[in-house]
């Protein structure tokens, strides 16, 4: 049977090759239509003030050639993939076995990173950035992954947290450790405030209203100059202290280096910030894992699976949704005040829609509801974004392209399996396609 198919496909090969060539030529023609006007003719402001055109047909030729070659390669890859498949059951089992080690290995690596030889200021800063997004991803996961509510305005709560810390610290001189819970509470309060009116909405209506709220908060932050200093932002936000010990570069009495009798170094603060965000991220993770096992977490997941059944079973849909909104917002508030204290400067520029989109992309790319998947996705997206920093203006282009590519290749995210929260008897891993995504 299989030899007959192979013979038949061998007989078809010349015509298949011709078809592929035709397909690629068609792709090249479409690419020509796409790139000729926009890449080929560049508008520049001429010295006289008007616009003039500059012609760049070489670039168009390169792009069209790339489209042609890319299409041929894609077709060849598809033909190979559709050919004989290796036995995948053994591989899947091996992968699952390896998967069990991923979480502890990553955790150990994260804890040990500051002491790994060769880790400098740059690596630590990158680590802090990645961990901030891991934390935001885990926070948003409560809303999107567990409760199934699509929130496109998550960055608003991040902004509330950041501005809450910045304003409380610069106006009243409160310390970071007092402001951190306050910022979280304030963000949670805003989560409830914004969540309450939109609870009746479902699906994409909810998505667009949350997006609108995110934009409203950003516009208010930009224009309420007397409070937020508008687009110029808030500067000289105080740095956090370690039980009252400061991290001043020169050492001196009351500083971290002085108390422990070590050489003052600017790395201390970075290491401290790194462990701070690691602790905050792990707190987020721990809270969401614990809550999943409690009635509240089960209600969230039940709500995601079937809202009508939930109502029939007497689950209070309003409170359940609101708690998800509030908790997600609270963690964003924590992350926001950390962001403010790390940067020392915040402005509305940092809280645009694109941030919400990136956080949501991390949650979805990680496979909604999978904690480790989100961490991997944050590492891939944010780390990859840094790796490509030499690309300059092409960087966002590559970033967006990667988002599309990962989604097309793995629509269910990087980690495609789930362990049920509650199970009768043996706890089996199931495919992500069995998990609903919620309609709220």
């Amino acid at each position: 049977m299989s030899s007959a198919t192979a013979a038949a496909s061998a007989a078809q090969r010349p015509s298949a090759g011709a078809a592929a060539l035709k397909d690629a030529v068609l792709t090249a023609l479409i690419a020509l239509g796409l790139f000729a006007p926009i890449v080929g003719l560049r508008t520049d402001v001429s010295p006289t003030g008007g616009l003039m055109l500059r012609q760049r047909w070489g670039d168009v030729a390169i792009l069209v050639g790339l489209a042609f070659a890319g299409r041929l390669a894609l077709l060849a890859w598809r033909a190979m993939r559709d050919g004989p498949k290796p036995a995948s059951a053994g591989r899947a089992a091996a992968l699952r076995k390896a998967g069990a080690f991923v979480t502890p290995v990553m955790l150990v690596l994260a804890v040990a990173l500051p002491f790994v030889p060769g880790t400098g200021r740059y690596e630590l800063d990158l680590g802090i950035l990645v961990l901030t997004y891991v934390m935001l991803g885990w926070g948003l996961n409560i809303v999107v992954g567990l409760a199934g509510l699509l929130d496109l305005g998550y960055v608003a709560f991040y902004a509330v947290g950041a501005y809450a810390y910045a304003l409380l610290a610069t106006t009243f001189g409160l310390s970071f450790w007092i402001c951190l819970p306050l910022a979280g509470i304030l963000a949670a309060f805003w989560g409830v405030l914004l969540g309450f009116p939109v609870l009746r909405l479902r699906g994409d209506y909810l998505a667009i209203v949350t997006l609108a709220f995110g934009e409203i908060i950003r516009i208010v932050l930009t224009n309420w100059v007397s409070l937020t200093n508008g687009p110029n932002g808030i500067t000289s936000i105080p740095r956090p202290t370690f039980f009252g010990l400061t991290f001043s570069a020169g050492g001196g009495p009351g500083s971290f280096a002085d108390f422990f009798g070590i050489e003052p170094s600017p790395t201390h603060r970075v290491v401290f910030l790194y462990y701070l965000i690691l602790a905050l991220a792990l707190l987020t993770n721990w809270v969401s894992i614990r809550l999943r096992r409690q009635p509240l977490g089960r209600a969230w997941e039940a709500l995601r699976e079937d809202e009508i059944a939930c109502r029939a079973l007497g689950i209070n849909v309003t409170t359940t949704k609101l708690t998800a909104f509030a908790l997600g917002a609270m963690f964003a508030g924590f992350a926001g005040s950390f962001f403010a204290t790390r940067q020392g400067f915040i402005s509305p520029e940092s809280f645009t829609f694109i941030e919400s989109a990136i956080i949501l992309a991390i949650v979805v790319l990680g496979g909604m509801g999978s904690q480790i998947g989100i961490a991997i996705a944050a590492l891939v997206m944010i780390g990859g974004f840094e790796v490509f920093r030499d690309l300059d203006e092409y960087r966002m282009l590559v970033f967006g392209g990667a988002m599309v590519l990962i989604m097309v290749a793995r629509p269910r995210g990087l980690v495609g399996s789930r362990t049920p929260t509650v199970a009768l008897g043996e706890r089996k891993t199931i495919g992500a396609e069995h998990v609903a995504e919620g309609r709220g």
Partner: protein
Amino acid sequence: MAYALQQLINGISLGMIYGLIAVGYTMVYGIIGMINFAHGDVFMIGAFVALISLVMLVSGGIMDGPAAILIVLLVSMCVTALYGWTVERIAYRPLRGSFRLAPLISAIGMSIVLQNYMQVAQGARVKPINPVLPGGVTVLEADAFVVQFSYMQMLIIAVTLAVLAIFTWLVTRTPLGRAMRACEQDRKMASLLGIDTDRTISLTFVIGAALAAVAGTMYLLRYGVIDFYIGFLAGVKAFTAAVLGGIGSLPGAVLGGLLIGLIETFWSAYFSVQYKDVAAFSILAITLIFMPTGLLGRAEVEKV
């Protein structure tokens, strides 16, 4: 009074542009149930193609005035339609039948790609053009305030109405429109009855992109300045308009666009320009809270 009349004219011409973009959103949403986040950027592409062809025609000294506008419009519609088709083919078709969030993320990625592609290809600086159709008619003169109805605004309203009339004919009277409506009601059943659903969906994107190109061209001619970032805000506003009118409803999209345009213009005229977007978004939130399916949307029947 005269001031209000002027704002009414401005608001309607702005609302027409939003309405044209909103139709693209609502059409795609009706057929495949996804928010085409890249649609705002397709509008931006339309504006840029119009800019490039306009500069070519005018600075090349080939032609000027209304004839140039017509050619620019057609070129922009064709190229932008090709972009719309390509976006659907690359980013959405492989995800057909996948779960709901996958195409949304893919669309956000595509929006980032289109924006940065345009930034790389055409530069980040704003592109100003000279007015193509200056002048206008004085409608009213009262209290030393002159109400102007510019030729450009007349053109926007006339072109939009003409395009929408053609579009309505296309959806209600042609086999393609019937196929589109069938796909909207039940895609599986439509394909069982012999409708090529993939082709219909592709054509939906092509038509939506062409309408966005009309909007982009009008935007360029009316405001005279564009940059690669105009797509985001216009897209969000147009989506707001589509939701306000009741997503999935074509007349609703135009109505929503007009309302958003009017709200924005009157708010900027009487209250504050900085908070005009807040006004538009607040109206959206308030409308949805009291009428969760929008103004002209059909109530969703919940099935167990």
